[in-house]
């Protein structure tokens, strides 16, 4: 088992940091899956601890200048590591202004991801900061717990309004109630509502669009076509923990070109962030009354 990678470009280092910090804000610890082409950040929370799932994938070639890996075996050429987000964030903090960052899987007294950060230096001698972040290597037989969650059979798929706007609204609603009902229809309309003994508040977003998905669960480009059948007017809704939603809105530091919200009526909400080559899926389960 071997892994080493090198980030050189400042933009790449910052982009990578933003992705990691986004995930770290959503989950305390998560799984990093390393394959020859892609890196994945995975969280699969049990129902008792909130039931959140995250699936984030990025193409390594867009980040790393050098990238070498050998998995557990030739047949299963992958590595699964359990990491604590906070530790990895601390390591990346010193990489803010780095010239390059080497990431390496090492064996100290425990398996570690070693971040070797080369900082700019005025003299000939180089300045390096090395962080050893302890990790747990996940055994082959447990891998199946971390497979990509299937695309839910959603009732409604809708593009989200600008997240900044949404964040303001959710920030206020958070002070009123612990739950928010998110509903949407096939007519480009989305509502957020909270209800308490004292007040009920509903924010209506209109003129959004509904993406079209093909049979393989892939996004099709002709996304501005709004079906006009009677079905599209009906709202499907999901009641979720407002804190989890708010964490997602506040925590995400990527600049996604598209954010899609898929609602399975009274079951789950599936957020899908797409930024160029990068995608992040976030599942929030419904909390029923």
């Amino acid at each position, binding site marked *: 088992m071997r892994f080493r990678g090198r980030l050189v470009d400042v933009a790449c280092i910052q982009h990578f940091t933003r992705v990691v910090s986004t995930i770290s804000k959503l989950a305390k610890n998560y799984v990093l899956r390393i394959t020859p082409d892609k890196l994945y950040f995975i969280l699969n929370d049990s129902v008792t601890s909130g039931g959140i799932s995250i699936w984030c994938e990025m193409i390594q070639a867009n980040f790393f200048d050098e990238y070498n890996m050998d998995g557990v075996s030739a047949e299963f050429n992958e590595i699964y590591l359990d990491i604590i987000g906070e530790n990895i964030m601390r390591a990346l903090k010193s990489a803010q202004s780095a010239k390059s960052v080497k990431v390496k899987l090492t064996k100290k007294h425990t398996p570690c991801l070693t971040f070797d950060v080369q900082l700019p230096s005025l003299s000939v001698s180089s300045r390096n900061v090395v962080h050893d972040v302890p990790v747990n290597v996940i055994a082959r037989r447990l891998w199946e717990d971390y497979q990509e969650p299937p695309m839910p059979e959603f009732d409604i798929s809708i593009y989200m*309004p600008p997240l900044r*706007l949404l964040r*303001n*609204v959710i*920030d*206020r*609603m958070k*002070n*009123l109630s612990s739950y928010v009902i998110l509903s949407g229809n096939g007519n480009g309309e989305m509502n957020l509502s909270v209800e308490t*003994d*004292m*007040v*009920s*508040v*509903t*924010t*209506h*977003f*209109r*003129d959004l669009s509904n993406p079209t998905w093909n049979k393989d669960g892939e996004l099709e480009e002709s996304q501005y076509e709004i079906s006009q059948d009677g079905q599209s007017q009906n709202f499907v809704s999901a009641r979720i923990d407002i804190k989890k939603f708010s964490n997602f809105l506040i925590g995400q530091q990527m600049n996604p070109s598209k954010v899609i919200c898929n609602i399975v009526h009274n079951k789950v909400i599936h957020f899908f962030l797409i930024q160029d080559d990068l995608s992040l899926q976030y599942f929030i389960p419904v909390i029923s009354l």
Partner: protein
Amino acid sequence: MSLSTQQGDEDGQYVLIAKLDNARNMSNILKAIHFKEMATVFATANGIKVTVEDSKCIQANSFLQAGIFQEFILREESATFKIDITVLLECLNIFGSSTLPGATTALKMCYGGYGSPLILWLEEGGVLTDCTIKTLEPDEVLDFNFSSTNVINKIIMKSECLKEAFSELDMTSEVLEILMSPDKPYLRLSTFGNAGSTHADYPKDSDMVESFQCTQTQTNRYKLSLLKPSVKALTLSNKISIRTDCRGFLSLQYMIRNDDGQICFVEYYCSPDEELDENDDR
């Protein structure tokens, strides 16, 4: 704008209809008196008065005169109800309290009369929010019986010079002592805390003082914990009028200029801190 799409005939059922192009004008004034959860709203043809009280010793009023609203209709002589002001403020700021130029929240507020909820429609950038806030049985508000004929000392000054003194008040002191006098030291604010006493003196001929009408020396103490919330009003205001009457009651009136240049008023009344053995026979 979406707000205008609300049908006119639907409006007929409401006792009170008020429209505001910039909801911040209302939320700012309400923030100045937001030190308790519950507020009493009292609407007349002149506008809306919102009152918050604490401990039967302090009362704060915000006046939203009819003129600051783009439309103000009241179908009855008056309307009064109690409302959770914390919730009301959250609703008014639902689109965030940022001060981005050009992004203002339009507001339409309706009340259907005794027992009905207060309904707010807010709109910003094509996004609409509707809020239904329950109203409660109004409480009797205190009458401090503060009449201008009984006023002994009155000072009008720019708020600026008081802001610093008030924001740095020694909170370990139980009381704030206000001395107003026609002679030196004219206006003195004192606290008596764990670390010692502080005095802040203001001369009467400073540029900051606009009007100085003190007839006799008066020294009164007020519970600092009760007066502390008035800092919110002070920081928003341009001018302040400090008055005391013959019983030592304190009236603080704040002149607040909103984003659109309109003038609004907030006032605080506070009763003096009496010694326990004295009989309060007012």
